[in-house]
């Protein structure tokens, strides 16, 4: 997971967002990693939508 501009500021301007989080897979990614991402997104929603 990478956060920020991903060296693609013009794209973010075009999309009208300040920064994004990007999740990507590698050959080493496991189901556990995916679960950790889901847990993380849930935790973030809990913090920022409360």
């Amino acid at each position: 997971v990478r956060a920020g501009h991903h060296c693609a500021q013009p794209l973010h301007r075009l999309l009208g967002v300040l920064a994004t989080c990007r999740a990507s897979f590698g050959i080493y990614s496991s189901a556990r990693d995916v679960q950790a991402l889901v847990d993380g997104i849930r935790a973030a929603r809990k913090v920022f939508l409360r």
Partner: protein
Amino acid sequence: MSFGSLDSLYREVVLDHHRHPRKNRPLGDYDVQASGKNPSCGDEVTLQLKFAGDRIADIGVISHGCAISTSSGSMLADLADGLTLGEAEKLAAVFRRALRGEETPAEVDLGDLEALTGVRKFPVRIKCALLPWVTLLDAVLSHRRGGDGSLPGSKAGDDQPEELVVQLKDGADESER
């Protein structure tokens, strides 16, 4: 996986500053403006300062970015308003020390910033918390260069420690500015 330290970082006081940033408006009339960016993560802040002599008489902090940088800017708006140049520099330096986990002088009250020192546990985010403060130092520097006669160290009773300021400026490097 535990999110305990995340919870302690995003405390209610931090989220409140993020949702309702203080003095988040442009000033109609200002003496100095400074902007800071963290291009890698997308945080942006613009500070506008109005001075009355050596003192910050009004401040506008226009932030776009993550919760850490906007709340830090909002706290800056609260804390720096009414300070002298030397006091503002000292506060910035002390906050930086706190973020590095170093000892801070007891006489300096960090106020709500205390809640942001939890960012220590997330080294890549320290630059977010520092952005508004580094930008404040830029603004103070350009005000001093602006020729109002108040050169650094020229004021009686100014206890602003020069080396602290230098240290803070050095820190801008590690923040990928």
